[in-house]
């Protein structure tokens, strides 16, 4: 049933009100503007025959005489192999000058996964980045954000993780992206050859704000389709703070009561609904979500990183161009460390971090001008090597090579009995 109306009653913020009958919550409408543009809108509420539409490309330039056509269906996303290598905007329209997709479509914001059908995740995701693989191993179906601040190379890190994992499909959801960042992702994926298994949903910083909040839903709905068809999908979402800010902007313009620093009271549920799409489906595919959360003012208690931390399974702190080994945490790492990876993995990683923490203290002592003991000097040497060979984001090694490197560093800096490691491991894997 297609119904057309020629009068818009009220326009405010991103909302346009139309008098219409028989519309559904969530139904899409196409508005034809006088200047020839067209935009989609979604029914977000109705009261009698007054229907409120959230206009995806904003209400700028919308006139009371514009034509609104209700489409009788909800927001959908196409999926299928032809979407790979392609770039779309938040409304799902191609923005890479390629053809419109004619494939099957699926509604976004689909039902949630039955918890009783979930399995305990235990498949290791190799990234070849020591600060992840070695110390905070990533696991299939994990949802984990990179906590960072503007200016840090978080998008570079995200792109590198994506092209170095062996995911079948990569879906990038970009929210509030600068054009340079968008171009960077495109170039990087093209250069590394990952583009042919990648699909992008991009909301640029200059795009209408409503499209921003659609991006994760589009990306995850498409991912879910691939995942139920045996594919391991990696979903990258950058930046979820921009997404939350878009939610804030819209909810305030709709006169909803704000809860904390202007964010809507539903922020936790809104974020969780997206992150919880991460899943490992028994005897089928999976969705792993790596997101970026920039922390305004480097403040982890800001509502966005705070709520995120309660939802996700750990976090990577990206500070000063490196992944901080102390604040970072992968809650699922126990599922794979030493079980899927080499047996000495867990103990070796713990020993390396413990000694690095001691080394940091030694460095403090050195900077305060205290006299250093022989042990302090050893620690300082170790810290230098550790930072150069392990922490640097340039390092690119297979997990077994990372473990060997760890033993090599120990052999170079310490005596056998100084590392506190089990003799069993030292005899088997030590490099002394």
């Amino acid at each position, binding site marked *: 049933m297609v119904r057309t109306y020629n009068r818009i009653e009220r326009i405010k913020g991103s909302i346009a009100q139309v008098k219409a009958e028989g519309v559904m919550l969530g139904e899409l409408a196409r508005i034809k503007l006088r200047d020839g543009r067209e935009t989609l809108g979604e029914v977000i509420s109705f009261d009698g025959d007054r229907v409120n539409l959230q206009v995806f490309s904003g209400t700028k330039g919308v006139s009371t005489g514009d034509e609104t056509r209700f489409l009788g269906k909800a927001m959908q996303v196409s999926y299928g192999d032809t979407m790979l290598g392609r770039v779309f905007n938040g409304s799902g329209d191609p923005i890479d000058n390629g053809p419109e997709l004619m494939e099957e479509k699926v509604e976004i914001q689909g039902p949630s996964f039955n*918890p009783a059908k979930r399995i305990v995740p235990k498949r290791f995701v190799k990234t070849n980045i020591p600060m992840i693989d070695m110390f905070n191993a990533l696991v299939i179906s994990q949802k984990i954000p990179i906590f960072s601040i503007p200016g840090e190379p978080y998008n570079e890190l995200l792109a590198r993780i994506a092209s170095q994992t062996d995911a079948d499909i990569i879906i990038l959801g970009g929210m509030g992206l600068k054009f340079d960042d968008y171009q960077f992702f495109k170039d990087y994926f093209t250069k590394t050859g990952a583009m042919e298994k990648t699909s992008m949903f991009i909301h640029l910083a200059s795009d209408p704000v409503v499209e921003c909040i659609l991006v994760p839903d589009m990306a995850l709905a498409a991912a879910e389709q691939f995942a139920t068809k045996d594919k391991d999908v990696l979903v990258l979402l950058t930046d979820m703070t921009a997404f939350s800010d878009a939610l804030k902007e819209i909810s305030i313009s709709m006169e909803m*009561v704000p809860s904390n620093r202007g964010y809507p009271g*539903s922020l936790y549920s809104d974020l969780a609904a997206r992150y919880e799409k991460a899943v490992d489906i028994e005897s089928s595919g999976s969705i792993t979500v790596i997101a970026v959360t920039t922390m305004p003012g480097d403040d982890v208690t800001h509502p966005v990183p705070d709520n995120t931390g*309660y939802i996700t399974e750990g976090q990577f702190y990206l500070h000063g161009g490196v992944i901080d080994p102390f604040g970072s945490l992968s809650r699922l790492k126990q599922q794979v460390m030493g079980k899927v990876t080499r047996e000495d993995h867990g103990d070796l990683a713990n020993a390396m971090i413990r000694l690095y923490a001691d080394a940091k203290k030694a460095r403090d002592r050195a900077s305060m001008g205290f006299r250093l003991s022989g042990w302090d000097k050893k620690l300082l040497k170790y810290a230098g090597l550790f930072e150069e060979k392990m922490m640097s984001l340039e390092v690119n090694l297979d997990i077994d090579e990372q473990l060997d490197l760890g033993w090599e560093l120990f052999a170079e800096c310490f005596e056998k009995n100084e590392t506190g490691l089990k003799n069993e491991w030292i005899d088997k894997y030590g490099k002394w």
Partner: protein
Amino acid sequence: MVDKAERSRGIIVAAQGNLMTVRFEGVVRQNEVVYVKSAGLSLKGEVIEISGNEAKIQVFEPTKGVRYGDEVEFDSDLLTVELGPGLLKRVFDGLQNPLEDIAEQSGYFLPRGVYLDPLPRDTKWKWTPLAQVGATVEKAHFLGWVPEENVEHKIMVPFNFIGKGTVKEIAPEGEYTVDQEIAKIEDEKGNIHSVKMMQRWPAKFPLRFGERLLPKEQLTTSMRVIDGPFPVAKGGTFCTPGPFGAGKTVLQHQVSKYAKTQIVVIVACGERAGEVVEILREFPHLDDPQTGGKLMDRTSIICNTSSMPVAARESSVYMGVTIAEYYRQMGVDCLLLADSTSRWAQALREMSGRLEEIPGEEAFPAYLSTRISELYERAGIIKLYDGKEGSLTIGGSVSPAGGNFEEPVTLSTLAVVGCFLALSRQRSDARRYPAIDPLISWSKYNDRFAEHGDNFMKDRVKKIAFAQNMVLRSDEIGKKMSVVGEEGIAIEDLVVYLKGEFYDAVYLQQNAFDPVDTATDMERQNEQLEMVSKVLEKEYSFEDKEKAREYFLSLTDKVIQLNYLSKDVSIYDQKKEEILNIIEGV
């Protein structure tokens, strides 16, 4: 029950998100269940506001596709919980939908508008009658029992039965399903009521028949830091607030595994689905040390995780507490664990916002603290009509924004609970687990145990108070030391500091990943406390500070190693003797 024909009907006239306005004819009850008939689906909801011939309802499911004019059916019943044998070993959502059955029927995803029977209708239960024909009974009196896992599951006179009744018929021993008649009872007016094994109870009303008693007995958890300084009482309440990453979930899992209770109801309310999966996949394989069965046998799970509908999140907590109260009514000890009550409060906040109520602090509704106290007040011990006692202990985790306890949910919770187990980021960063902060946590139960307990208990409470005092002094000295350095304090103070650190390391901290240390029974806890107290009470005189440090460092290491040793190992006694000699020696 109102006859189906009399039930009111209405149509949707306005909708926004989960909140809808219905124009109705007939009679409508506040909080009555409604079904919105939309596109062939029937979506469950609840009346939350009535004005004239319009009612506002909140729908428990995603509302995409609802239109103006969609029909609404009023059910006349409030949101109820189905009670009867078959609640254990099961996983329900916030509306008591059995998730495993739904998975079987619908696959990976949770479909809308599918409501299955919470209790299995085809399972036959071995029934033994207790009441005789001709006996006078009242509501909640026992009619008979069926074995359900390790519980003698009592079948009771319906809770909504009014006045005294006479048993007219009772089914003989045999096997029955939950919806078969097992008794006929005549009420005072001469009406005959047919009784089945299952019955319903409105979730938001406390289910409590009998005299309420004060909690006086300890609910042990196998965790030293809880059972020692901050104990929980059977029939009492506790809360565990903490920032993310401080180990709230590990703590809740530990308690759900090792708490000495007969039934555990876990409400996973708005948290990660992954955490429930761990319970679901682990518990069926873990042994219950008390019964020899599996942990899952005593567990019932209500699971409304963060991506499941928010409105059903609100009801999930009530579902859980009602199920626990039901078992309490049989004279059973129950424990309800809700993770997390903050998510539940947020659900209240979301709905209150949509209703455009005037917001209170941080936009939480003004009735937040009332709701929180109502919930925790459902805990308690009751004396049943036959003189036996049943208990319900409630523990809620709280997820305060930014880890700051000065927020409405934490503050309202603290006002009503008997025990506060504060998880702190500082302790978890220092890897001192469980990260329950001994400086700010408290329990109101220790004094009561001392009052009601025997001499041993009185002595135990005294020892713990002494140790606690040591921790406080040690912390003060530690703070001083960080300013003036070790040189700036007297050796006596350093010893106090080291004693506090020692007690923290060997008694308060416990390794959840060590197979032995993870759970310590009371006998061993008493033994450990005995040993620690010897050290704390001893007057030491060391030559210099270095010697004092060395002594406590080596002692700490030895005691921790002993904590990791099973008492069944032959060298245990020898190791213990060694340590005692060191303590006596200096």
